[in-house]
């Protein structure tokens, strides 16, 4: 079956530009997560959506980062006025959303963002 998909797979942008990253979760998964992974580092949690509840934005590093999830499915992570330190792999994951919290997540392939 189809897994989590992300687009674009690679993005090169100039410092100061805005970027949008897209995530399509597994069909039927109500929970969606965004992470950032810098070279050689572990996963850094950014934001979590569960159904129609208000998202958990506690991991967003600055107000330049925002995310939306429309219709409970597709999500877009937006980074405004990108900085070089934003360069990383941005990973999206989804889960069934039955546990009322964290549960086994299935990851997409990631978007590799390079800010020049």
């Amino acid at each position: 079956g189809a897994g989590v998909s992300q687009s674009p797979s690679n993005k090169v942008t100039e410092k100061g530009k805005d970027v949008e990253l897209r995530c399509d979760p597994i069909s039927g998964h109500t929970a969606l997560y965004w992470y950032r992974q810098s070279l050689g580092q572990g996963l850094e949690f950014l934001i979590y959506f569960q159904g129609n509840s208000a998202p958990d934005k506690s991991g967003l590093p600055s107000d330049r980062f925002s995310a939306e999830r429309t219709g409970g499915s597709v999500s877009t992570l937006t980074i405004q006025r990108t900085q070089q330190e934003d360069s990383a792999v941005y990973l999206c994951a989804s889960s069934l959303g039955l546990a009322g919290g964290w549960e086994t997540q299935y990851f997409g392939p990631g978007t590799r963002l390079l800010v020049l």
Partner: protein
Amino acid sequence: GESVGLHLPTLSVQEGDNSIINCAYSNSASDYFIWYKQESGKGPQFIIDIRSNMDKRQGQRVTVLLNKTVKHLSLQIAATQPGDSAVYFCAEIEYGGSQGNLIFGKGTKLSVKP
């Protein structure tokens, strides 16, 4: 193991040997543990999980061992193959409250020599 700075600990094994990858988790209240495999250029892939009321669980060529006394989790891979080369990391989940707590480890790089 735990990583320091930008360098992941590396485990190098010969093809056909067994591999043991370790993870020292931090939260004694964690209820659930997951091992992920991440190949170069790909997202993490679920391998196996274990609940805190178990101390061992087996899958296909993989076994996870949980020692709650010393907060240690290990992943054993039998007859390691070149396709097993990847970064492996553990995740721990504590259920409770509005959504609980999730912590990912930084990973161990497994290198399989043919």
